[in-house]
């Protein structure tokens, strides 16, 4: 026991003396959680609180353009900025110079075109029913086109979503106009209101149900993504401290010296793993505390602690073991500290990117979603998502444990065989 105690003490002392490593492991996640949560919170709010900034230029000479703007405003989905003085030719540059992401241009013939179309539809219906109608020749105006402008950085699916919303409000206006015109042709225009209300308000609704295993009503927010995501990122960044620690011991001969002593190398490796698993647990405690107590004070969403505490501990433990095992393997294979630090850090950034730490995997293209399965950070994050957002059950965590378990065994075997090849073990 004295040997184990001494080995643990040595690892702790080495860790305490590694100021850069400590800063990377403890300050970095706090800063990342703080900064990225603030930045992403506005994006989450933009989507969740339905406040999409929309620049509208309405040049319609009739009243239907105004109706469309009213409907969009009343929907609560958009924050409308009406700038009717802007000419269509300069709308692209105005959009970019005003820092807006999307704009809608309503042409001068918007109402006339819709009314002309409604008249045509109504005429066809009256003829088919054999009813008399006013056949006075009217000026034909072709169907109008709205112009939708978007910043090139805006994701295509986001633009399509906004256009779909506008399209649905256009349907309301077009249907309303057609009903009005038909009733007018039948000289009962004053009675059209009832049908319009029935057709427009009585539509099939869609109930959104979030799939989760408990009765939690928590909605995914920036805190619930960023706190676990950047904690995992920081856990794996221990490769800089632990990896270079192992390289130093290999290169300076300490490991070989230990080989001449009446001790087992398992004591050394166990001590390293134990200390760094505790480090990972402290990282989680620190960032979670920030999510629970500090972020809400800054107006950011509070981190809600998962109900299943034992599963939470298990996810933290297996994630820590994955991070420690990866750092051990990098330390065993790197020839110099620079290699361990450089390759270790870059590989974690790549694993983080494909694993959904920077951008959630569901917005990635299909092939990237496939590759994300090869990132241990992805499976760690999945574990936390199951806990935080889906009220995680052991059943759902099974895949997470299986993949991380395979990764841990792979790294440990890699470390063992490399050290054995070097005759250290």
């Amino acid at each position: 026991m004295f040997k184990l105690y001494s080995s643990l003490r040595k690892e702790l002392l080495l860790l305490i003396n590694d100021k850069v490593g400590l800063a990377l492991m403890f300050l970095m996640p706090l800063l990342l959680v703080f900064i990225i949560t603030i930045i992403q919170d506005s994006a989450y709010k933009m989507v969740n609180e339905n406040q999409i900034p929309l620049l509208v230029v309405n040049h319609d000479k009739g009243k239907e353009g105004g109706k469309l703007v009213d409907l969009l405003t009343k929907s609560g989905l958009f924050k409308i900025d009406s700038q009717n003085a802007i000419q269509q030719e300069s709308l692209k540059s105005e959009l970019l110079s005003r820092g807006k992401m999307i704009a809608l241009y309503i042409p001068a013939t918007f109402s006339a075109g819709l009314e002309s179309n409604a008249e045509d539809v109504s005429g066809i219906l009256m003829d088919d029913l054999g009813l008399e109608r006013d056949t006075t020749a009217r000026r034909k105006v072709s169907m109008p086109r709205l112009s939708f402008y978007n910043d090139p950085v805006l994701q295509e699916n986001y633009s399509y979503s906004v256009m779909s919303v506008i399209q649905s409000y256009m349907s309301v206006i077009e249907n309303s106009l057609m009903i009005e015109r038909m009733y007018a042709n039948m000289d009962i225009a004053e009675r059209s209101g009832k049908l319009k209300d029935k057709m427009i308000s009585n539509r099939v609704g869609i109930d959104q149900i979030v799939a989760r295993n408990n009765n939690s009503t928590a909605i995914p927010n920036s805190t619930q993504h960023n706190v676990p995501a950047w904690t995992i990122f920081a856990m794996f960044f221990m490769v800089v401290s632990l990896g270079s620690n192992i390289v130093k011991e290999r290169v300076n001969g300490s490991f070989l010296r230990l080989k001449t002593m009446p001790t087992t190398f398992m004591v050394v490796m166990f001590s390293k793993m134990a200390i760094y698993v505790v480090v990972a647990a402290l990282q989680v405690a620190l960032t979670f505390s920030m999510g629970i107590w500090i972020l809400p004070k800054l107006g950011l969403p509070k981190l809600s602690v998962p109900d299943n505490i034992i599963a939470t501990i298990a996810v933290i433990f297996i994630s820590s073991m994955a991070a420690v095992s990866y750092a051990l393997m990098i330390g065993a294979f790197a020839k110099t500290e620079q290699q361990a630090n450089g390759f270790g850090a870059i590989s974690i950034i790549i694993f983080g990117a494909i694993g959904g730490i920077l951008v959630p995997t569901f917005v990635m293209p299909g092939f990237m979603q496939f590759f994300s399965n090869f990132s241990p950070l992805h499976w760690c994050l999945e574990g936390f998502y199951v806990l935080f957002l889906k009220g995680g059950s052991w059943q759902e965590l099974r895949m997470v444990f299986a993949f991380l378990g395979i990764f841990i065994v792979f790294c440990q075997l890699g470390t063992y065989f490399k050290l054995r090849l070097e005759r250290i073990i």
Partner: protein
Amino acid sequence: MAGQACIQIRGVFKRYKTAQEDSLADVSLDIMQSDVFGLLGPNGAGKTTLISILCGIIPVSSGDVQFFHNGRPYSEHERKSRIGFVPQEYAFYQELTPRQNLDYFGAMYNLPKKRLQERREHLLQVLGLQKAADQKVGTFSGGMKRRVNLAIGIIHEPEILFLDEPTVGVDVQSRNAIIRYLQQVNQAGTSIIYTSHHMSEAEEFCKNIALIDHGRVIAAGGLQHLKAVHEVENLQTLFINLTGEEYRD
């Protein structure tokens, strides 16, 4: 007990996996208990390879190495407990203090806590490290680092001590301190197997030597005897006569 072999090396060959030639070829030596035995030779001769084999760091390709104490052979576990190894590199933790390094390596040698503390303070004292005992080793001079390296290898009072160039790169004062202390350790009964490129130091320190070149023992025996047989005045001349003057690295 002098006069009995503590290490018997018989027909040892060593060839590394990627090498074309043997690093050691048919090496046979007897090293006596309480001896100071010098393994001397040019760069790449095979000295470090032989020490690494004796310390159990690398295996032999063929041949046999036996350790004895008072005529009784050691088991593998006993060998690890009873030998001390001071490598050429600073094989310790530069981020820790000498006290912390000695505490760690002493525990790895299975020293009980109380005995470890006594030995630690004794070594810090006799090797002139007491004042800097709580400073990080990384800030030390080369001579102080060599003394820390030595202290770690002898903290458990080994019966056999292997020293791979223990005074390389240190000033005269540190070299004297190290050699003086090693002589005391030897007088207390510890057998010392030592490699060095300092011929005058080896001449002063060693009782018996083996000259190795191209992995083979080209001369072995008592230092005075070898000088007499080869009719030379000092070890350096003997070394040059037997190994030649051309560069080896």
